[in-house]
């Protein structure tokens, strides 16, 4: 999967929002550590993919018409067998059709499960005056509430990346509180740099979120991603 073909596909469908599978696969191709996520259009294909990825897995609806997947009953987690996959596939499709009757369903995303870590967000948006800016912060659902984030204008230097990671008030959480192991800041910085390069290579990208990324004592992995491209 390359950027050009994904962009062409999205634009042909009148979309500016790349779907989860497209977003994650493009980021994985750019060297970012991402939970493996593949698109299935049949229950049988989903089962094959789950075996290939390794159980347990998550299934999620992929539809441009459904933005709140969980609310639509479009997400099933912790699926551990071929039987569970087959049942979940049917259920998700039925739920989605019930929630949004006219929804065009692209397929079902089959995603590996990652061990929970410290949740962070890395993103990019375009400032009208300064152009592309990167954002880092504590992630997950709390990002909108705490707004504990920092920004830097592209291009980034090593100094910029190190500082933006340490700028947030919650840096003590990354440093490890109450006996927790410190989060792998090197991996965070490395990920921000890779995303910055990815964004620099593709001026069509308007906005981007990786939220959450799980950070561990060693390593990092993006669990969800969203890429918005400019309209053609």
């Amino acid at each position: 999967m390359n950027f050009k073909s994904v962009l062409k596909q999205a634009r042909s469908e009148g979309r500016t929002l790349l779907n989860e599978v497209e977003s994650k696969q493009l980021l994985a191709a750019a060297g970012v550590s991402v939970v493996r996520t593949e698109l299935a259009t049949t229950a049988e294909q989903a089962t094959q993919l789950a075996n290939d990825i390794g159980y347990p897995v998550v299934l999620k609806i992929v539809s441009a018409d459904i933005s709140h997947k969980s609310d639509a009953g479009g997400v099933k987690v912790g699926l551990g067998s071929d039987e569970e996959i087959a049942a979940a596939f049917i259920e998700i499709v039925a739920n989605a059709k019930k929630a949004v009757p006219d929804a065009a369903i692209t397929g079902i995303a089959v995603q590996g499960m990652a061990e929970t870590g410290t949740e962070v967000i890395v993103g990019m948006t375009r400032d009208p005056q300064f152009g592309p800016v990167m954002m880092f912060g504590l992630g997950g659902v709390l990002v909108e509430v705490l707004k504990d984030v920092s920004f830097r204008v592209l291009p980034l230097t090593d100094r910029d990346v190190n500082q933006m990671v340490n700028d947030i008030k919650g840096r003590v959480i990354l440093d490890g509180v109450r006996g927790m192991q410190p989060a792998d800041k090197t991996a965070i910085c490395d990920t921000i740099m890779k995303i910055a390069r990815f964004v620099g290579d593709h001026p069509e990208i308007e906005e981007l979120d990786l939220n959450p990324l799980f950070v561990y004592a060693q390593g990092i992995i993006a669990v969800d991603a969203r890429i918005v491209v400019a309209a053609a």
Partner: protein
Amino acid sequence: MSSHSLDPIFNPRAVAVVGVSSNPNPTGMGSFYNSLLEAGFAETGGLYPVNPKVDEINGARCYPSLMDTPDPVDHVISQVPARFVPELVDQCVRKKVRSIHFFTAGFSETGDARMADIERQMITKLRDAGIRAIGPNCMGLYVPGSRLAFMAGFPMDAGNVFLLSQSGANAGEVVRELTTRGVRFSKVVSYGNGADLRAHDFLDYAAADEESTVVTAYIEGVQEGRKFFEALQRCARVKPVIVLKGGRTASGSQAAHSHTGSLAGSIEIFDAVCRQTGALRAETMEELQDLTVALSTNVHRARGRGVALFAGGGGGFAVLSADAIDRAGLTVPQMPQSAVDEMRAYIPVAGSSVNNPIDAFPPPEHMDDMLRLVATATGMDMVFMSPMVARSRWQNPNNTVKDEQGPVTVEPETESIATIAARQMRQLEDDTETPVIGVMRGGGMARMMGIESDDFFQAAYREGIGAFPSVARAAHTIAQLIEWREYRQGLPEIP
């Protein structure tokens, strides 16, 4: 002196004020001719008022048109209404002037597309002729070294601060406020719409200008963000740059499809720009002024966070001041026992504290020893000192001090208390190498002490001592400098 392409703008040989008021004593905004007269420009260069309706102004010849003025005219100040500007631009080209400042308003800032278009056309014409423009819609230049001033009453001694302001009124306010704090300016530019010369051009000039060691900027809309970023980066590598950004746009755009987009407000991004480039961001006019004072005096030399507070004022004032210092992120360390013991030798125990904050007055003959003890005690990175402390030395009721041989009369002082206090602070800092920072409350407290706070600020500034109108503002400013130094790490040290 550096040779920069904008140098001629700041050093004109002759200035024509076109559209000068026929009222011989205009005051307030736009009285450029009178301000230049007062600044003494006519004594060093040609100063030509232009107005076809009058023959003379205060006895000086007034020219009917720019074309009638003697040659050369390097700089033109345009006060004519916008509809006469195109003709004036043509005249400037023929007259071969080097720069023009448009006080004239009514162009792109109106939001009228036709006027924005006229602005673009006139700038193109000027640029083609090699003429640089400041404005439109601004106050232009205040350069004491070249006797240029855009308002009356500005001091004519030059200083170290380069001030850049999009707004003319703010430029005037900063000059007046900082002047009362003792600060002096190398160059001040109000550039308004920035149709030709913009913030990034002036930042580059300020970076190279040897007369300017501190750069202070008030910016509203950033024009050409990337150029601004890079110029700010170049300037902030070599000099302290303080930036106040006015005009907050709503946090993020409504149309954002990402968390990142919705969280990226203009102030958050501007803050990131300052951290990235190594500039200091001020959030208010007070911060802008305090930081400018701090970076032009000894305050920026303060290292560490420990404050010895020796400001008198009583117990309640001491407690609130210690709270304010703490809130700012500095500390009020305990006075070491050895220092306490030494101070107790000359301070009675009752009703006084020689811990930190120090709320105690020794007999005048021991004041110097006491100050040295405080300034050299372990953990004290700086001393906050009120001129009130200095006051007790010479303002005792009988003009006497007790000596070992008994009371002796002290000669009445001819200098102001403010001047003597400032000198004492300088002496203390020189003797101990601990930065001494002045704190002087205004209003009723100042009147009670018999010291004009402005007198003290200026006297302190002349001694290189930074002084602030409150403990809270002093502490907050120093905390900002500490944070600035931390995030500047990785950039070259400012010489």
